[in-house]
């Protein structure tokens, strides 16, 4: 039995990209409008009684102190309850989980979950790369984002014979999917040869093994399962979720071929939803780097440990594969505006379960979709949400 106490009745996002022409509030407004428009039977904004905002690094646009509580004002909702969630790369997916709990508790009736992230208001050097100088002055010195995942690629290759071509096949597949997604940052095909010819960013990861820096926003509207049909005849239910943590430093990892937080979070979500990996029809997983998707599909139980590389190369995760992964283009092609990412993934799951995903629609067997993020220093936190179109 799935949990199914809460339903998604509308979701939407803005086109991701380098949105130099839009500020944080404008992006939020765009995503809110898209989610409201996605409510089949219409909704008045006065119905919303709480907003959960996911923004991970306000410092990237110089507004660390106010990211969050300015959002209701930008949406015409000033006065409503509002809380900001920061939980590293899973900020958006955790905001969704917290929103679902707020509804399930009965405290709030209709909750807007909105993820907004401005990644490109600062230069790359002053923005994302500046983290090379953050954290512990010795144990984190030089640790840019790819450093958090590249050591896993080195070790995965060492232990399982995973090849650069297998890594590249993830980028090829997700770029292909991105071509089919009008919201994606990148909408161009790439080949394995192009991936392997791109320069090293942090070896063994090359430029096309890495997701871009993307501005974006996404929103979802949650209400109780009982009330869902006031807004739509095709609600999507929250079947289960899980969150788990791990130690913050890379040197505290007990394994470099698995992300334990993902395993734990997904096992909790599967148990809550009453399903297993074989019941999932489609998954939106955290592919900040190609190796991350390979780790994810193993840790989420879609393929055996060590087989993620060959499975990707063979097309098992393609739109028409055994388990379609990242139909939206994933972080690699759609982009990774951190706080928005999880909510955008959930929006894709919402569309897929309602069979509204157009050219990238996958075939549904069991009616379950899984959404996953992992991140933080040393991949110290993971969140998994499972959605279903099945009402019971």
């Amino acid at each position, binding site marked *: 039995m799935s949990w199914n106490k809460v339903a998604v009745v509308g979701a939407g996002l803005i086109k991701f990209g380098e949105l130099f022409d839009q500020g944080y509030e404008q992006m939020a407004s765009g995503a809110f409008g898209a989610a409201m428009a996605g409510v089949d039977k219409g909704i008045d904004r006065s119905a919303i009684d709480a907003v959960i905002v996911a923004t991970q690094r306000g410092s990237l646009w110089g507004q660390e102190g106010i990211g969050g509580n300015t959002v209701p004002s930008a949406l015409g909702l000033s006065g409503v309850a509002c809380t900001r969630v920061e939980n590293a790369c899973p900020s958006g997916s955790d905001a969704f989980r917290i929103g679902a709990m707020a509804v399930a508790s009965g405290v709030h009736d209709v909750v807007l979950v909105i993820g907004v992230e401005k990644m490109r208001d600062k230069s790359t050097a002053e923005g994302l790369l500046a983290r*090379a100088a953050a954290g512990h002055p010795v144990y984190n010195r030089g640790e840019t984002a*790819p450093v958090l995942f590249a050591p896993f690629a080195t070790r995965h290759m060492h232990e399982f014979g995973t090849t650069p071509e297998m890594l590249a096949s993830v980028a090829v597949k997700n770029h292909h999917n991105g071509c089919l997604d009008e919201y994606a940052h990148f909408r161009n095909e790439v080949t394995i040869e192009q991936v392997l010819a791109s320069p090293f960013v942090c070896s063994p990861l090359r430029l096309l093994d890495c997701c871009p820096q993307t501005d974006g926003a996404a929103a979802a509207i949650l209400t109780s399962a009982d009330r869902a049909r006031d807004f739509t005849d095709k609600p999507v239910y929250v079947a289960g979720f899980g969150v788990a943590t791990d130690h913050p430093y890379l040197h505290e990892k007990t394994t470099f071929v698995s992300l334990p937080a993902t395993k734990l979070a997904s096992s909790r979500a599967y148990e809550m939803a009453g399903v297993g990996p074989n019941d999932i029809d489609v998954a939106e997983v955290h592919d900040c780097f190609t190796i991350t998707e390979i780790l994810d599909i193993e840790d989420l139980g879609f393929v055996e440990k060590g087989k993620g590389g060959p499975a990707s190369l063979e097309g098992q995760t393609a739109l028409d594969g055994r388990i379609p992964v990242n139909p939206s283009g994933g972080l690699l092609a759609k982009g990774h505006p951190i706080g928005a990412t999880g909510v955008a993934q959930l929006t894709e799951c919402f569309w897929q379960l309602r069979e509204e995903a157009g050219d990238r629609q996958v075939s549904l067997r069991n009616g379950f979709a899984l959404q996953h993020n992992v991140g933080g220093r040393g991949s110290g936190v993971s969140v998994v949400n499972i959605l279903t179109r099945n009402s019971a």
Partner: protein
Amino acid sequence: MSNRPAAVSLTSVGVAVPTLRLQAAQVSAAWGGSSHKGAVALCDSDEDTLTLAWQAATDAISASGVSTDQVSGLWWGTTRPPFAEGPSHAFLAASLGLDASSQGALFAGSPHAGMEALLGAWDALASGHATIAVVVASDALVPGIGTAGETTTGAGAAALVLEAVGGDAAGPAAPARLVSRATRYAPVVDRYRADAADSTGDVYDGRLFREEVYLPLMTEAARAIGSTPAVWAVSDPDGKLGGALAKRVGGRLSSAEVQAALGDTGAAAALLGLVQACAQGDVSSGETVGVVGYGGGRASAVVVELSDLVPGASRISAKLKAGQQVTYTTALRARGQLEPMADPIQMGLPPGGAAFVRGNTEMLRFEGARCTACGTISTPPSVHPACTGCGETKLETVRLSRIGTVVTFVVNQTMPPPFQAPLPLVVVDLDDGARVMVQGSPADAESLAVDDTVSLSLRRYALERGIPVYGYKASRVAAKPASPATRSGGSADDTKGAGR
């Protein structure tokens, strides 16, 4: 004033050389003019006089068989310490793992500082105030761009472990003893650096310095020691003065080989020459070495009697041969004289701040927190009130091993200034069971592999807001063993291995 205080014994020695070598011809090519010969040693951007001093002293202590808690103190001489004013001595003492109650002194201000450290330690031992002294002389001076000093200024360090000769004259024989000494001075301006200057300038006139300052003072000091050693180890600011001095006083010059390999090592020069003499000396004849150092208008001479092989000395030969040849441009970058215009990204934590007050000792001593319940070592201790293995909170601070095996690694190619690519970052399983992630050596970027054996050494991680920040870095000492699964298990799920 006696030039024969109570003799002290020389127990062991250690030597450190920096990573880079610059051919003088490279400098000539950049600036034109007559072509210079020879080569100088210089620090990479993560080395300085303190990291060299650490390496030499670590090797000397290791060769002595003395444990660090037996050491009475550290006597360090360096022309220009890493902090012109500041905690240089405390940083070095901590990184050597010396007891918090250990004594000693920092001598600086001219290349004579190396001899002052030696004499200061001798005084402490002779007076009975100290029983085991670590003496280290190091320099990594930065010459002014386009000065003659660019073709002569080298870098290096030498360390000695000295022990008081006990009242029992028939005690265990020391491999060498310090027996006499003398000092002379003249108030003259030679090579110097003014307050606001970044680099050292040359002497006013080479001939003036040679005839009126160096040769008279050094000769007087050498003749005042009351014996005529067969071998001389001298400091030599330009590579030609030592030979002239040897002609005056008579004898062989052991420091010449060091000078040819490294250039003028400043405060370390005379003691490096002594180590070279120890490595080559004819111990059966009770050979004596005259060690004569110069700097800042002062010259000091010390007589060392050799009676056996001095532990640690033989390593100098391989060290003098090592070194990576670099271009003049690379040398300028390494010395910090060629920098990109982009503002460097500031460290998130200010190095004068509270996090460093809490964390400096554990970083310099390279410590972890060992769980008394399960044995797991959590690193660094200051951010781990609970064991990362089992969650228990009874932890004891331990110094970590500095040898281990590569678990995994990356080479970061994409970072803003002040970072320089390629930068390896390496996860290492240390031989004591702890796991750390540290920076690796850029020299290993192309060839590092999982299961390689690496050794960790003190390096300068950053020069942040003028403050040096030190930590340990890994460099490869051996490729992975030929047979699999000898050092690390290589199991599919790679759990931390035995010893935890």
